[in-house]
């Protein structure tokens, strides 16, 4: 990756960033900065970032569905795979991709999740991989359940996967969520709907692969992850 690390970072087009504070999501009203963000031209400290981060952050847990051989987790087995790409559509090798999610019952294996929905002893729901030379990543995991967000006006999060992606620059850092096609909870989710642009929301939804391509072992989804950043010079047509 080294020589062709992205060096140009344009502002996001309108409609991509979520609306903040976010209607229906009360804690954004106590956490989101109230002062306008100060626009700063990207400098050397922003277009750089840690390389070879897999040395610091151990990678490799790509099979979340059966962490102990012979003891599969409960639920619908799925495979999620795609490429991490820059804004020119170029693959980003050596990106660190972190995934975490609820189990099939909508419960996280996390101390902060105090709901009574059952934990699955064979499912932790977290993994970290490093993209290959073509920017590819992939996980075997379980389709997560929906879960309620407690509060005065309760709402249910649709099934979703959390992704943290560390690319070649500080400015290509992304924290995002992936949703499943056709879920009736998607249009009711305050977090999904915080993205104003309908096409941008569509890009957060994984694409189901035809079972004829995948076979009978699991359901397959493709989800490409586009990070900020381009080549320094615009590509001339």
């Amino acid at each position, binding site marked *: 990756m080294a020589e062709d690390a992205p060096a140009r970072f344009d502002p996001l087009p309108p409609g991509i960033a*979520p609306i903040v504070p976010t209607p229906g999501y009360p804690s954004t009203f106590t956490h989101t900065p109230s002062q306008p*963000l*100060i626009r700063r031209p990207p400098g050397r400290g922003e277009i750089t970032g840690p390389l070879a981060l897999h040395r610091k952050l151990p990678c490799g847990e790509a099979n979340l569905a059966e962490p102990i051989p012979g003891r599969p987790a409960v639920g619908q087995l799925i495979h999620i795979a795609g490429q991490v790409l820059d*804004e020119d559509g170029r693959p980003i090798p050596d990106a660190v991709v972190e995934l975490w999610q609820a189990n099939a019952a909508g419960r996280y294996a996390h101390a902060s999740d105090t709901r009574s929905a059952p934990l699955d002893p064979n499912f932790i729901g977290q993994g970290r991989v490093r993209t290959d030379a073509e920017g590819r990543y992939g996980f075997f995991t379980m389709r997560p359940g929906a879960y309620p967000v407690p509060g005065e006006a309760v709402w249910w999060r649709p099934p979703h996967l959390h992704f943290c992606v560390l690319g070649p620059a500080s400015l290509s850092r992304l924290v995002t969520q992936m949703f499943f096609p056709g879920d009736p909870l998607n249009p009711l989710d305050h977090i999904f709907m915080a993205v104003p642009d309908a096409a941008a929301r569509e890009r957060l939804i994984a694409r189901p692969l035809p079972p004829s391509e995948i076979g009978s072992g699991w359901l397959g989804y493709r989800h490409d992850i586009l990070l900020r950043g381009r080549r320094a010079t615009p590509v001339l047509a």
Partner: protein
Amino acid sequence: MTPLSSHTVGPFFPEAFIREGDNDLTRTTTDAPPSRRGTPIRLNGRVLREGGLPCINAILEAWQADAAGRFHHPADPEEAQADPEFLGWGRARTDAEGRYEFHTLLPGAFLDRAPHVNLLVMASGLMQPVATTLFFPEFAAANATDPVLALVPPSRRPRLFATPDNAGGYRFDIRLRGSADEETPFFED
């Protein structure tokens, strides 16, 4: 092609994703020897939300130049001279009081920039990571001409300076939301 939208990290970022030593910027791996090319410092502080209440379970990521002001990255023309033992990146989580801590080396100046540490904060209730920059008060001359500090309204600049403590460390509190006087200035690149 358009980048994906960002979303909140939520309350359930895995505990196992932040291991002991991940908040140490001086080591390229958890087992590697720390870089000694510079002045070791400790950065610590609290992340606070509206009302000055602690923001617990926030994730912070730090990124900075080495002690000579270089980055181990092709975008730095002096990459070849960068300290090979210094990672410059670390990750920390806030505790029940909103406290975080990093171990690093005092960063060097580069180009027209004063020594500084870039910090990214992610938390439940923050739909996008927020970016701020920590400066050191002792570099008065460099701070006076730093082009990023110059973008910040003068009345808000003091919030970007860490306070030296008497234990070889610096304190830097991050107020996510408050009045113009209270809130930490955040940047959009």
